[in-house]
């Protein structure tokens, strides 16, 4: 049993894309499609420094959300529900060359071709300078059957 209900965990583990929303300096939401990763306790996304505007937004305001909305974006069966998770993000910027490597196995599981691209990282070196974003879940909203017109189940997440 992880930090989130099992049904949500299964969705997080299967989903290939999520809408990751941050808040900009003018208090507006800004959403980025990203690969959601989950290690049983925390959620992760990661960003190349080539696409780093979101990182400045997170540094200024760590409140973020991650929604999984496309039921067909998996390598297996369609997702049964839609999920949005709100949480607090933490950036790992100590070593943008190495620090994100710990989530590489999770990334490869969802995007196996990454293994080949990583082996040939000389081709696109700046892409592999990356920042890991760790999200401590705070609240999960869970729309049964993907029906967002009906009220979601809300799970308040105990801090790990």
């Amino acid at each position, binding site marked *: 049993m992880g930090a989130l209900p099992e049904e949500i965990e299964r969705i997080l583990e299967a989903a*290939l*894309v999520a*809408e990751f*929303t*941050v*808040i900009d300096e*003018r*208090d*507006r*939401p*800004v*959403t980025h*499609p990203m690969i959601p990763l989950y290690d049983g306790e925390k959620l992760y996304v990661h960003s*190349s*420094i*080539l*696409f*780093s*505007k979101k*990182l*400045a937004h997170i540094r200024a305001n760590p*409140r*973020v*959300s991650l*929604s999984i*909305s*496309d039921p*067909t*974006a*998996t*390598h297996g069966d369609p997702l049964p529900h*839609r999920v*949005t998770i*709100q*949480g607090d993000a933490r950036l790992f*910027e100590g070593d*943008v*060359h190495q620090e994100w490597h710990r989530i590489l196995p999770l990334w490869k599981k*969802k*995007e*196996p*071709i*990454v293994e080949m691209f990583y082996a040939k*990282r*000389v*081709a*696109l*070196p*700046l*892409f592999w*300078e990356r920042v890991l974003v760790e999200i401590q879940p*705070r*609240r999960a*909203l869970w*729309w049964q059957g*993907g029906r*967002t*017109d*009906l009220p*979601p189940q809300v799970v308040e997440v105990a801090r790990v």
Partner: protein
Amino acid sequence: MSTTVDETLLRRIEEGFSHAVIAFVDHDGYPLSVATSYRVDPSRGVIELDVVAADVPLGRQVNVVFSHIRPQPSVGYDERRYVSLWGSLSGTASGYELRPGRAQTWDEREVPFFQYSELTVPQAHAYLEELSARQDRRIRPKLSGGWLFLRATRLPFLSAMVVPVGLGTAIAALDGAWHWWLFLLTLFGAAFVHLGLNVANDVFDTMSGADAANTTPTQFSGGSRVILYGLMSRRQMALLSTGFYAAAIGIGLFLAVDRGFWPLLWLGVSGVAISIAYTAPPFRLVHRGLGEVAVGAGFGPIMLLGAQYVQAQRVTWEAGFASIPVAILIALVLYANEVPDRPGDAAAGKRTLPVRLSKHAVILSYETAVLVAFGLIAGGAISGLLVRPAILALLAAPLGLKVRRGLRENYDDPYALMPSLGAGVNLHLSTGLLLIVGYVISIAATHNMAHVPLYLH
């Protein structure tokens, strides 16, 4: 990438996505994003969104996102695209209406990922500068030493000099002149000139803005980009280039003193001068449409005759003749590789031949030059100007057809053109190696047969 909200964009949204996601800041100050169905009314410039069971704020800025991928088992996914819209929502009977004021989009069919990654290089630099200031230490992107050397020097392109040095040596060996250590020294000398040229080219292309203006580099074009990416400084690259040239000059001087001063000095000085003048001001031959001539001369007659002279202490008409198709084919490698660089080169004032010529003229010139190169090889082998087994080099000619087809079909698509550019490199290398094989066959026949048949001579 930022874009204007117009009817075209709205039509793309209408056709390209399965659902929308409304993102807003909730009462707790956290973003909240919720999926819903949508319809587009391009005539009114609005998106109609179905109601969701959340406190969606009306009259405040929200972000509505449309995102798509196509899962690809055992790979990941492709067909990445998204449209992100900002505006305020107004309430309707069935939900909400968005009249977007601002948009951001990316569709990898229109802007391939590699190009997108080039367009955002300034964002990476801004991030690293800001991070360096925060951490009070200089933070640069990294590559391991081996990869960095490979990238900075463009080491795989050394095949360009292996052909003329090998062929010049083989022609000398046919006359009985063969010293393996002189061959190795020649090879290293030529390699150092080539590496010096590659690195100097990057220094000057960075200074002229040609590399920065090129947002569609490929593995065959657009330079090493190590300065542009911040992997090495311009000063480091200038020192590296100087080091390569110094090593080449050292080897060249030794060979000149040992094998024949003035002929080798002139050949060496010409080679180094042409390689520097290739991109260095004030000559900048490649900016004037003379890059092909410079590369053809340097990697054709100069290296081939130089290699022959080092071994045999003389040059022959045969070697001079053999150097012409080699020069043409290496010039064609550069010529084809300049095709995807056209927009960036033109923007930086680098008026290469493909910048100056129309597509039709570029392809016609390519076809003509390939025909001339192989015509010379065939004519030389049949007439006896070259050894007869040199006719083997014609086996490589079909690669020219592959390049021609690629240029015709993918002239404006740098990434789709890459296999054809690779075929162009192989055309030069294969032809050159087959010419060398032809000479080795002749050498073997001469040494092992009492009477060498005409077809092996």
